[in-house]
Every structure is written in C-alpha cells, then in structure tokens.
C-alpha cells in the first residue's frame, strides 16, 4: 500500500483573506434573485415531447442494433425538444418548455405512468395528491403514447430466472412481502416498473461525467476518436478473413457515439441560433450583448474545450441536461469535484482580467440555480411520499492529491459561499476533510453549515476514502479521485457504480429470530429454526441465533444478485446504459466496444454490487434491553417481553418504558456499544464472506440512509428497544435512536467511532445541534476540533443539523411561513415543509445537544 506523505513547503494559501473577500460578495444579485424566484414560484409541469420523439424514432429504427437505435432516439429528442432562454439567464438550456418542468419517456415505465395519470398524481390542477401538473392536451398525447408501450412490455427476465433457479419461495423475502431483502431491484412484482428498458438502469445507478477528460477533448475530439476506431475496425476487416464479434460491437458503439455527439452539438447550435435571434429583437443593449455572447458560447461548447469559466459552466450544464433528456429517470448524477474542474479557468480568468470576482460568483450562482431546476417525476402520491424527489447532484470539494497535498482552492470556498447565500436544498456539498486541510477552511465550512441551517456541507474522511481504493489495488492517481454519489455512496471518477445496492433488513431478521424463524407478518416460516428464545439462558445464545439467520439470508441475498446478473447479461438486451455517460468515458468504452457497467471499466470495482444492511442500532439497543432486563437484572422474563412486543406494547406500557430506559447506543456506554460493535463487525464479515461472483473480490458493504429506514420500518413489528410496530427504524447505522443520545455529542462520536468504517460506505453520523452551540467563532473552532477528533478516531461521514425546536414546531404548524427551512434527511437536504409529518416528528425528536 502506498503511504501518502505530504510534501513539505506546499504552498499554503492565505485562507483568511480569501474567505473574507468571498464573504463580502453579495451572491443574491437582482439577476440571481429573479431567476430563483421565478423558478421557485412556478408549478411543476410534466411534458410529453421527449416521449413522443423517442417513440417516433424507435418505430423508425426497428432493424438497427440496439446501441445505434438508442443513439438515434436521443438525437431525435434533442433535435425536436422545445428550447427556452429565460429572462436574464447567462447559463442556458432549459430542461423543458416550462420554468419548472420534467420529461418522462413512456417507453420506460408505461404502466406506472398510466397509473399516475389515473390516480391524479399527475393532474391539470394543484391538489393534495398531485406531484406534477399537465395540460389536457399534453395529457392526451402522453396517455396515448403510454398505452402504445403498455402493450409492448418485455418479459420479466429477472423474476422468471429467479423463479426457475431459486424457486417460488424466494419471492416471500422480497420487498412487497416479508421484505427481508431490500433494494431497488428486489421486488417480487415489477410489472408497473417494466418498460422496454426495465428498471435496471432506470434507478439506482450512479453516474458521473469525467469533466476533465471530456472538456480536454470536446465532443469534436470524441468524434475524432470514434472515427479512428471505425477506421481501425474497417482495416481489420479488410486485412483478415473473419472479423471478431467484439470488433463489430466496437464499430457499432463508435458509430452510435458519433450520432450522439453530433446531435448534442446540433442541440447547442439550436440554442446559439435562438440566442442570436433573441439578440436581434432585444431593445436593451446590455441584454443584447449578453445574448450575443451566449450565442457565441453555445457555438463553441460542448463541441470544443472551454476557454473560460463561463464556457466551462455552460459545458457542464449542457452535458448534464443531455443526460436528463436521454433518461429523465436517471436521478443519481453527481456533479463531482467541480472545484477541481473549474479552478484552472477561475484562476486564468482573474489573472487575465477576463472577468471580475463578482462576475464569476454570479455565474456560479446562476449555474447553482440551473442545477436545481432539474426535476425528476416522482410517481408516488405527494401525500404519501417519504421525501421529495431528489436528483442527488452531489458536489464534492477539497481532498488531498496522491502526495497528500491539500487541493482545496478558491472555487471550493466560492461553492460554499454560493451554497450559504442561496440556501437551495440542492446541490448537496461534501467536504473531503484531511489532516493537511487548513483549519481556517474547516471553520469556514462549519460556519456555512450553521448559516445554511441544514447539515450542508457534510464531511467525509478523505484519507479513509482513498485508502479503501488503494487497498483494492487502484493506483494512487485514480484512488484519490473519488466523489460522493447517490445517497451516501461514493465512487471513483474513473468508474461508475452501476449495479445498485442489495440490502438486508436486519430488523426483520431479528424479528424472525425472536419467532424461531417464523415471520408474523406473512405467517410463514421464512428463516431457520434457531430455537425458542424464551428457553435461551444467555444473551450470547440469542446473538448466535440472530447471526445464523443473518448468514442464512445473506446467502439468499447473494444468490438473488447472482441470478439477476445472469439474467441481465444473457437476456436479449432491451436495456442500455445512458449514452451521454458512456461517451464521457470514451477512452474505456471505445476500445472495448462495451458500455460502462457491462465490462468497460478500468477497475473491477466499477461493476461491483454493494451488499448492505440497515438497522444495526435498533438491533444493538434491542439486544442490550434483553440482556439488561431479562438476563442481568431479571426484571422481566423473555416470555413477558415477547408478549409485550407482539401486542405492540398495548397494555404493556410499563415494560416499554423499562425498555426505553436501559443503556442505549450513542452514549459512550460500553454495555450497549460493545454489542453494537460486535453486530456491526459480524454482519459485515458475513456479507463479505463469499467473494463477488463476477469479480472474485470482496464487495463493499453499505449502510444506507436517506429514507430507506422508513421503508424497512413499515414491515417490522415492535422491537425490544421500545420502538413501536411499523414505525421507521433508526436512520444511518451510526446515529442514535432519536432522543436517546442524551449524553453529549462527544459521547455519540465515541460510540460511533468504536466501529470500523474500513470496508463500508454509508453509515453517516447525523448530529443535531442547537444554534447556541455554534453561535460564535470560538464555538466553531471547538466544533472543528470535535470534527477532527471524529476523523482521527477513524470516522467516515459526519453531518450536522443546526436548528432549534421552536422553529421546527412552528414550521410544522405554519409551513407557508417556513418555505426555506432546510433539513438533511439521511444523505441529502430537503425543505422541511415538504417532509411528511412522521419525518418532521422524527427530526424534532432528535436530541437537542446542549439545550
């Protein structure tokens, strides 16, 4: 393993001066405010244009190879999509014809779309249920399109093969039944989700554009590479009697890329023409010049390498826009390390006097708003959703290079300042903290967190993030180049994580263990017979039984993944990875003729699944309660406890109170922390026991958050930790049960850092602070010291919500007055008023440290 040694004498920036200068800039210029307000006040509309273009093209290309067909469909969408340049914009490219709108492609999930239209989730007027609006005319077009596709559903390859190999009973474990296994692919009934592209690529994948590589070449450069590849294959064909199948794939992929690149360049060209046309009719000479400038920029990028900061932002926006046009369901597209990408442009523009600092700040602020305008249609009814749809455009800043040098720069600060002043719920910002980062920057990031109010930015352990990849054999140069992605994932810029996550519901497994393998909800014997727990004579016996069940279900989980992957690789391809992403990794995909995720990745981790679990804290607290009350203090018998939880505590409130008042995780109490650590390590050992069947390597493990804890909780009865049946389990495997971290933040941090984060991602520590703990510079310095201690002790991910309870209760009562109040739920931020009451209550219940 390479040891990272900082280079002495690496230039230290004058952070205090940089930060003071940026703080003095007002990011909320009239132009920025106008763009923000117009977007914020606009209703969300669903648009049919992309769907119609797609269908029309698909009907015309029936005989062509899939990849080429896909590229031509993308080209059709881009050639026909309506264009808009909104008033005052400098970064252009509107996702739809509306101020706030989103596309759907009926071919992807036709039945779900029809159901949403029927249920009023999409409606022509605002209602409790409506997630998005649609005009009557557009509705008619979209319905017709969806009906066409609903008749053309492909077979359910994954489920058919699961049935064939694993038997019908495997479905009992899946999400819509007992839900021992959880994850986006793990549904027994997928009919609604089937479309010609299936669910595999629609959700759960995590994509990223390699900006530096792509910008260096421009799309014209990519076309050149593809043409060279075509020539190579043609020469091979001319020189030998037979040509390999793989060469044919390469040929088609290269052809397809050229089709897509040319379409993207045409799309930017259409914007240039629109801007020029608007300029001709513009009376205001200042705006006229701006529009002419916009036209010039759209003619240049993304075809060519950007020449300045403005063009770089426009480049990024166009490419992300194209990604959404290609696949409007593809939510998880990280923005990545844009401080690194943009810095050379920033530095050069300032040095050469091309732009002032204020102008650069305004451009970034406009870009920030533009990023927020991407919307993905959420088919869940608004009144029952877990959380508002998020597109997870995570920004990662800071970090160290392969020599250990701090790479934090002025753009890192500018990003934080834009985030702080604009207070949009997205993008979320992640700071890669390491020991050579300046204290001044860390304190500033914490100050931004406080002022932003909702746990943004979050902090990740840079050294650990890099080390995990070094240990997997990734060379240092690529190992240091990683970004936060999805909700609580992270991955290498040079790879994509595309296979989604397969999770175990530990709480369900614990419930099954307490019932000797029987699941009370489905009324079936799903697990092993590990013994009647009421006859157990020690808590160790219970832990053993639980781990045996975990091992049993982990094998099922792995087998389901194994079969899914076979189905994916062997069934006729109806699914394709988004081309916009494939072409940004052209130097890996072109020579192999395979899209990313199907083999073309520089490292095996690029196609590896993550095996995860949720519920470690609930299990630790539950076992501790049993150990304390049944075995150590003998206050109640196991039978009494079992009866109480089976009755969901009804008539047994005293027992529930006893269970709530025993030692709880999160208080630096070894009585329960030791159990937590043991369960944490053992479950991971079990999940990693068998190597990945396709790479032969150990999988990363994952402890997820976001709103998965609500989904898991819905199927699990009362637990001995005092939790009520069917309520959410604890979010984030290292956060304490809400209201139970009563000791101090330092105690919670110690509890959370007794475990090892070396083989997993996720498991964030969510902490909530009252403002009085962070209201002075001195207290922020102390908070910085605490964050550093967290990382010194091996912590991976920490984030703070800084709120006061009165504010939250008032916000719950008068949402209209608190429209901008932001909280972080699991791995991302959301507006508090958008959250359902159950999540609001959970946030309020979190211990207020220091109140």
């Amino acid at each position, binding site marked *: 393993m390479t040891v990272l040694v900082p280079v002495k004498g690496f230039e230290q920036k004058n952070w205090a001066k940089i930060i003071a200068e940026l703080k003095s800039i007002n990011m909320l210029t009239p132009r920025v405010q106008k763009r923000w307000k117009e977007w914020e006040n606009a209703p969300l509309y669903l648009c049919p244009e992309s769907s119609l273009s797609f269908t029309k093209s698909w009907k015309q290309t029936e005989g062509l190879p899939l990849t080429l067909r896909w590229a031509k469909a993308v080209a059709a969408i881009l050639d026909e999509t309506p264009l808009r340049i909104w008033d005052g914009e400098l970064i252009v490219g509107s996702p739809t014809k509306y101020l706030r709108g989103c596309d759907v492609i009926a071919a992807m999930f036709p039945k779900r779309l029809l159901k949403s239209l029927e249920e009023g989730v999409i409606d022509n007027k605002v209602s409790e249920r409506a997630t998005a609006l649609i005009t009557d005319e557009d509705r008619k077009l979209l319905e017709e399109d969806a009906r066409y596709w609903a008749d053309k559903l492909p077979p359910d390859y994954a489920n058919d093969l699961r049935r064939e190999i694993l038997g019908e009973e495997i479905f009992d474990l899946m999400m819509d039944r007992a839900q021992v296994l959880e994850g986006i692919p793990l549904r027994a009934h997928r009919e609604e989700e089937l479309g010609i592209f299936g669910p595999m690529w629609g959700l759960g994948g995590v994509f990223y554009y390699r900006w530096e590589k792509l910008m260096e070449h421009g799309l014209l450069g990519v076309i050149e590479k593809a043409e060279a590849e075509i020539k190579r294959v043609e020469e091979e064909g001319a020189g030998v009697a037979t040509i390999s199948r793989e060469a044919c794939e390469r040929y088609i992929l290269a052809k397809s890329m050229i089709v897509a690149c040319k379409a993207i360049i045409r799309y930017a060209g259409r914007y240039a023409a629109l801007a020029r046309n608007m300029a001709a009719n513009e009376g205001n000479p200042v705006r006229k010049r701006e529009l002419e400038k916009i036209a010039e920029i759209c003619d240049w990028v993304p075809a060519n390498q950007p020449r300045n900061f403005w063009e770089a932002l426009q480049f990024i926006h166009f490419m992300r826009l194209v990604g959404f046009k290609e696949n409007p369901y593809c939510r998880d597209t990280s923005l990545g390390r844009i401080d690194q990408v943009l810095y050379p442009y920033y530095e050069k523009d300032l040095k050469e006097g091309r732009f002032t600092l204020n102008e650069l700040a305004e451009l970034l602020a406009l870009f920030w708003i533009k990023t927020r305008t991407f919307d993905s249609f959420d088919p869940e009814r608004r009144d029952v959703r877990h959380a508002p749809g998020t597109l997870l455009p995570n920004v990662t800043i800071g970090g160290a290079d392969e020599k250990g040098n701090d790479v934090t720069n002025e753009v890192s600060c500018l990003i934080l300042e834009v985030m702080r002043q604009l207070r949009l719920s997205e993008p979320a910002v992640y700071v890669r903290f390491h020991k050579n980062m300046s204290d001044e920057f860390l304190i500033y990031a914490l100050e931004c967190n406080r002022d932003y109010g909702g746990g943004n930015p979050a902090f990740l352990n840079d050294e650990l993030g890099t080390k995990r990849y070094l240990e997997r054999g990734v060379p240092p140069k690529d190992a240091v180049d990683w970004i936060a992605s999805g909700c609580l994932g992270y991955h290498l810029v040079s790879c994509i994580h595309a296979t989604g996550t397969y999770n175990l519901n530990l709480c369900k497994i614990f419930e099954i263990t307490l019932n000797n393998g029987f699941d009370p909800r489905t009324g079936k014997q799903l697990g092993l017979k590990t013994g009647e727990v009421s006859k157990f004579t020690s808590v160790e016996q219970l832990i053993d039984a639980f781990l045996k069940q975990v091992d049993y279900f982990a094998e099922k989980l792995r087998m389901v993944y194994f079969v899914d992957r076979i189905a994916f690789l062997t069934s006729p391809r109806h699914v394709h990875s988004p081309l916009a992403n494939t072409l940004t990794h052209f130097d890996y995909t072109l020579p192999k003729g395979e899209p990313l995720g199907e083999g073309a990745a520089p490292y095996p981790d690029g196609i590896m699944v993550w095996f995860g679990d949720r519920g470690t804290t609930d299990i630790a607290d539950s076992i501790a309660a049993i150990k304390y009350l049944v075995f150590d203090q003998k206050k109640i018998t196991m039978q009494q406890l079992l009866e109480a939880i089976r009755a969901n505590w009804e008539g047994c409130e005293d027992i529930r109170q006893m269970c709530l008042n025993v030692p709880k995780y999160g208080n630096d109490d070894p009585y329960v922390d030791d159990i937590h650590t043991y369960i944490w390590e053992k479950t991971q050992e079990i999940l990693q026991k068998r190597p990945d069947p396709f790479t032969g390597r150990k999988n990363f493990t994952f402890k997820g958050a976001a709103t998965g804890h609500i989904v898991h909780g819905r199927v699990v009865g009362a637990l001995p930790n005092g939790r009520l049946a069917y309520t959410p389990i604890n979010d984030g495997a290292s956060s304490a049960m809400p209201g139970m971290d009563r000791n101090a933040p*330092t105690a919670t941090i110690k509890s959370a850092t007794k475990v090892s984060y070396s083989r997993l991602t996720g498991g964030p520590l969510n902490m909530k602070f009252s403002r009085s703990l962070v209201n002075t510079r001195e207290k922020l310095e102390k908070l910085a010291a605490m964050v550093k201690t967290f990382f010194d002790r091996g912590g991976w991910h920490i984030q703070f919500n800084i709120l006061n309870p009165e504010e939250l209760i008032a916000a719950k009562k008068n949402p209209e007055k608190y429209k901008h109040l932001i909280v972080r739920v699991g791995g991302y931020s959301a507006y508090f008023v958008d959250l359902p009451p159950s999540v609001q209550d959970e946030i309020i219940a979190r211990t207020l440290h220091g109140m």
Partner: protein
Amino acid sequence: MVAEGVIFNIQRYSLDDGPGIRTIVFLKGCPLKCLWCANPEGQKHTPEVAHRDSLCNKCMRCVQVCPMKAISVDAEGIRINRDLCSVCGECAKVCNREALGIYGKSMTVEEVFEEVIKDVDFYKKSNGGVTASGGEPLFQSEFTAALFKKCLEAGIGTVLETSGYAEEDNLKKVLSYTDLVLYDLKCADPKLHIQLTGVSNNLILKNLSIASNLVPLIIRVPVIPNCNDSQQEVEAMAQIIIQNGIDKVELMPYHRFGMGKYKMLDRNYFLEELERPSDGLLQKVKEIFESYGLACKIVA
C-alpha cells in the same frame, strides 16, 4: 484516602467554561444562596429527590414502595413530604418513566476521573480539559484538589469555577492543581451582596487577592437586571478587578433555564418575573468595564 465527593452532574462537550472542549463536574453544596441561582440542586450538600410531574403516569409504585410514607400523588403530580423523606432512593428505582430521580451521588475521585478521561481525545485536539463547578467546588476542596491532581498527572487541564467563598487553606489546596480560575464577582457593595446571595463578600474579596497572585484568573460577573447592573455597582466592580491586577472579565447574562428545577425540588423561585437582560444593557455594562481597560466578553 480522600472522602467521596457528592456530584450532581457531569456534563461533556461544555463550551462556555474555560478553553476548548471541556467536561464540567458539578459538585453539590454551596454556602451562597443567590436569588438567580440556575442550579438550585447544587445548593444543598446532600442528595435530594426531584420529581418531574409531566412524566408521571400515576402508577403509584413509588407511593407503595416508600418506607417513610413520604410520597403521595394527586391531580397536580407527585407530592413529597420532605420532612419525612430519607432520600433512600427506592422511589426512583421503581419509576420506569424517570419521573422521579435523585440529584447528587457519592463518587470516588477515581469514578469521576473515569468519566472525565472519556473525552481526552477531544481535550487534546481543542486544548480543553476538566472544569469543576457547582454548587461551590471549594465546599468539597479535598475532593476537588484530588481530582485536579489526578487530571494534571494525566495531562488534562483544570479550570476552577468558584464563588471564592471558602477558607483560605481550602482555596490554596485546590489552586495548587488549577490552571485557570473563573472567579465570580456578583457585586461590590457588601450589604447588597448579603441581600442577593445571603453572605457578605469580605471573604470573597480577600480570597480574590490571594488567588489572583497565584493562578491566571478571569472574573465572571452575572448580569442580573435591577440587582447588580447599576452604573455605580459596575464601576465599583471594575475598580476591584483592576486593583487585583486582573485584565479579563466575562459577563454571564441572567437566564431562567433553572426555573423548572425549583419546582422539581419544591423550592420557591423569587425572580419569576425577571427577564433576560437586553442586548443594550449587556453592551452598556461591557462598555463600562472596557472603559477601565478590561477585556470584556459576553458569554452567550
């Protein structure tokens, strides 16, 4: 062998009582009875039973278990006949809802140290440590000195937060193991001092001149509206401070967060109508101190 101390709270991640991240050890027992005291549970030296009526579900187990028959429960909540109560703690043991609890616990130096050492990583990163507060930590000077000695040996910094009301010997005993003193100055006028705190400030002022010669010291002035905030009083306090060669003052704005605890202990609170001092008042007091060349900070 040092006797056990009586402790009523150990609070980690404390940010306002000395440098860095600190753990405050609250020692029970105080010779003063300040009208505004926010820690009434720190006044009596011996443990006390406290009741939190909002958590009580009237299960009556405490009534049944009390050997002194000192507890009754009515519509208002839990009633404790304090004349009968022997503080045996049986009631708290049977209460599943934490509606009854005991303030004050006898602990050895080792036991307290074990709690304090838990955050040593955080002290090291932040230049923090332990702070002894109360009550009045000098009221248990043997214990405080022994605890501080043990902390210093382990490389943990020590801060003493005191009213200064103690025997000179007891003060010196603790100061030999103290890095920094946060010394309360509640008012300058001796008569007013008796009215506000129940004791004269003669001893306090005498000890101040001793302490300020031995250990770095910061003065803390509670700002209590209409009690010690007159121009004359503040100027008199400033005089005392500079006479002792001290250059730092911290203002502690009055707050009512302690009010609930009086009810839990069945005590009367005399300042129910008083509100937190306005920012204007605090600023004014600050400026007076500053006019005497003192560095003055409002702790908020």
